C-alpha cells in the first residue's frame, strides 16, 4: 500500500496516523513478524521497521540498544528484506536505516529490494536533501517514497526546498535531540507543525510515548505521530512483549482517533 493512500483513508475517517517503529531483528530475526503483527492488531497504521547500522548517530540510548541487540542477533540487510517480504503486510511499511547501509548495497539494488519486498518508503536520518539526489532518482523510478525530515532548526529557505521534494509524509522532528521517550509536548513542536504548510501529510516523531501526547500533537494539526522508543522499551523488557506492544498501540491509536 502506498503511504499517501493510507493518509487519505485516515483523513476520511478523521483519524491521525499511528506510525510505529521497531528495529527489525530485535532481539532476533524471528521475533519481528510476531511484534509487527501485534502492532498492527493494536491499530498501527504504518510500520517503520529499522534496518540496523553499527553507528546509529541519530538514535538515543533506547533504540541504540535495540539496534545492538538486533546486530548481535545476526540481522543483515539480506535477512531484513527476506523478513519483510514474509510479512505480507496490508498497511504501508517504511524502512529506517542509515545511509552507509544503502550506499554499500548500491542505491539501485537497495531501492529495488525495497520495492520487491513491499516497502513503501525510506527514511534515512543522516541523508539531508543535499546529498540525496542519487537515491531519490531510484526511488522515483521504483515508486518508493523517500521521506524527508524537518527539524525546529530548519530554516524557511531549506523548508521550502524540502517540501518541494517531499514524498509520502514529512517527518517532523519534535524537538532538538535524539529519539527517546519523553512525557511532554514542547511548544516548539506546535510551532513547527504550524510552520510546515503543505499538502503532504505531516507526522511528528521523537519523544512521543503516551496517548495524551499523541492526541495533543494531532490536535495541533499533525496528520500522524511516530512512536518508537516506547515500543522498543517494551521489547527491551522481554516480558509479555506482543501483548504489551498491542496494548500501547491501541492506547495511542485510540487517543488520535477523533472521528
Amino acid at each position, binding site marked *: 500500500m502506498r503511504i499517501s493512500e493510507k493518509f487519505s483513508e485516515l483523513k476520511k475517517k478523521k483519524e491521525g496516523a499511528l506510525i510505529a517503529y521497531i528495529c527489525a531483528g530485535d532481539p532476533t530475526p524471528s521475533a519481528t513478524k510476531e511484534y509487527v503483527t501485534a502492532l498492527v492488531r493494536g491499530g498501527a497504521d504504518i510500520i517503520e521497521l529499522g534496518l540496523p547500522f553499527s553507528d546509529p548517530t541519530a538514535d538515543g540510548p533506547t533504540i541504540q540498544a535495540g539496534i545492538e541487540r538486533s546486530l548481535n542477533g545476526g540481522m543483515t540487510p539480506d535477512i531484513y528484506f527476506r523478513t519483510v517480504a514474509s510479512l505480507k503486510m496490508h498497511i504501508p511499511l517504511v524502512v529506517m536505516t542509515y545511509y552507509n547501509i544503502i550506499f554499500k548495497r548500491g542505491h539501485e539494488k537497495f531501492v529495488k529490494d525495497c520495492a520487491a519486498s513491499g516497502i513503501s518508503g525510506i527514511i534515512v536520518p543522516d541523508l*539531508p536533501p543535499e*546529498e540525496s539526489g542519487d537515491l531519490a532518482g531510484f526511488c522515483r523510478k521504483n515508486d518508493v517514497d523517500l521521506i524527508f525530515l524537518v527539524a525546529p532548526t530548519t530554516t524557511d529557505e531549506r523548508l521550502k526546498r524540502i517540501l518541494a521534494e517531499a514524498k509520502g509524509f514529512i517527518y517532523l522532528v519534535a524537538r532538538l535531540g535524539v529519539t527517546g521517550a519523553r512525557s511532554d509536548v514542547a511548544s516548539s513542536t506546535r510551532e513547527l507543525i504550524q510552520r510546515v504548510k503543505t499538502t503532504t501529510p505531516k507526522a511528528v516523531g521523537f519523544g512521543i510515548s503516551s496517548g495524551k501526547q499523541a492526541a495533543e500533537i494531532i490536535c495541533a494539526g499533525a496528520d500522524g505521530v511516530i512512536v518508537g522508543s516506547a515500543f522498543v522499551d517494551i521489547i527491551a523488557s522481554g516480558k509479555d512483549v506482543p501483548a504489551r506492544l498491542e496494548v500501547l498501540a491501541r492506547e495511542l491509536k485510540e487517543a488520535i482517533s477523533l472521528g
Partner: protein
Amino acid sequence: MKRELKSTKFGKYGGQFVPEVLMPALEELTEQYERYKDDSVFNEELNYYLKDFAGRPSPLYHAKRLSKEYGVKIYLKREDLVHGGAHKLNNTLGQALLARYMGKKRIIAETGAGQHGTACAMAGAAFGIKTEVYMGAKDTVRQRMNVYRMELMGTKVIPVKGGSQTLKDAINEAMRDWVANVETTHYLIGSVVGPHPFPTIVRDFQSVIGKEVRTQIMEKEGRFPDSIVACTGGGSNAMGIFHPFIEDDVDLFAVEAGGSGMKVTDKEALHSATLCTGEDGVLHGMRTKVLQNKYGQILESSSIAAGLDYAGVGPELAYLADIGRLKPCNSMDAEALEAFNDLCIFEGIIPALESSHAVAYVKKVAASGELGDIVVINLSGRGDKDLETVMGMRK
C-alpha cells in the same frame, strides 16, 4: 538553497551526511568560518594564543643521530613541544576561538585516548568557555590520567556507556548532544573528519604546521624537502603538514596503523589502515574510505596507538590518495615500537606511539631511496602518555 554543494566535497569525498537538525548549524558554521577565517582581528588573537600559549612555532629539528642511523637526512617537526604535548591544540584553539566569535556558550567534543579532549580542556579553560567531553566508558578507565587532566581544567568528562564504550560511541554521543543543543553549543571535532566544513576548518587550523615547515626548511636547506611523512588516524596532523605543500614537488606519505596485521573479520580489523584497505562509505557525516564489512557495518579497528585507532579517515586524504597526490602506507605495532625506541635512544625524544608510526615508515623505506635525500617527519606528539603501554608491551 544557495549553498555551493561543490565546495563541501573533495572530489567525491566529504559532504554533509547528518540529520536535518544539524544542517543549519553546519551552514552557520560554514558562514561564520568564511567570515572569520581571514579576519585580521580573529587571526591576530589566534596567532597570539598559538605563539604565547601553545608555544609556536615548533622547531624543525635536524635529528643528526637518527639520520645517520636510518641513512637519510631527517628533520623532525616538533609538535611534541606544543602545549599539551601534541598538534591537537592548534585545532582546538582555532575552533574554541571561532566558537567564541560565533557567540557559542559551550563546547563539546569526543575523545578516544583523551588527547583531543585534553586539548579541548586547555583551550576551553584559556578562553573561559564551558567544555564537556564525551569519552567511551572503557576509555575513561584506560586513560584515567587524561580524564583527571581534563577535570582539573574544569572540563566535564561524560562517560559513554553505550556500544563498545570507546571512541566511536563517544562520537555518536557527542553528535547527539550537538543535535540537542545546537543553538548554544559548538561541536569541536578533533580531526579532519566529520561533515563539511569540519575537514576544511581543522585542516586550515592545522596548516600552521606546514606553513612553518616551509619557512624553516628554506632557512636550513634553501629548498623544500623531498618528502614529508606523517602518521594518519583521522589525518589532521598529516593534512596540517601536507596542505601547504600540495602544489609543490614534495612527496607526501600518510602512514596508517598496520596494527598487528591485515586480518579482517566481519566485526573487526586488526589494523586501522583505512586509506590502504578501506572502501568507500559514509560515516560520521562524511563520505570517505571506511573500514566496513560487506553490509556496510563499521568494523572495530585496532592499533597500539589509540590516536590512530579509527575506522574512517579524513575525506581530503581519501581524495588525495585517489588522485595519487599522497601515498598511503602503514607501519605495524611492532615497527612503531622499534621506532619509538630509536628516537628515545638516539635523540632523547620520547615520541607518541602515533608519531612513531611515521618514524617507523622512514626506517623501513629510507634505504630504497623512495624518500629522496631530505625527509621531514611530523612528530605529532610526545610519548609520555604512552609509557604504560610501552612498558606493558616490552615485558
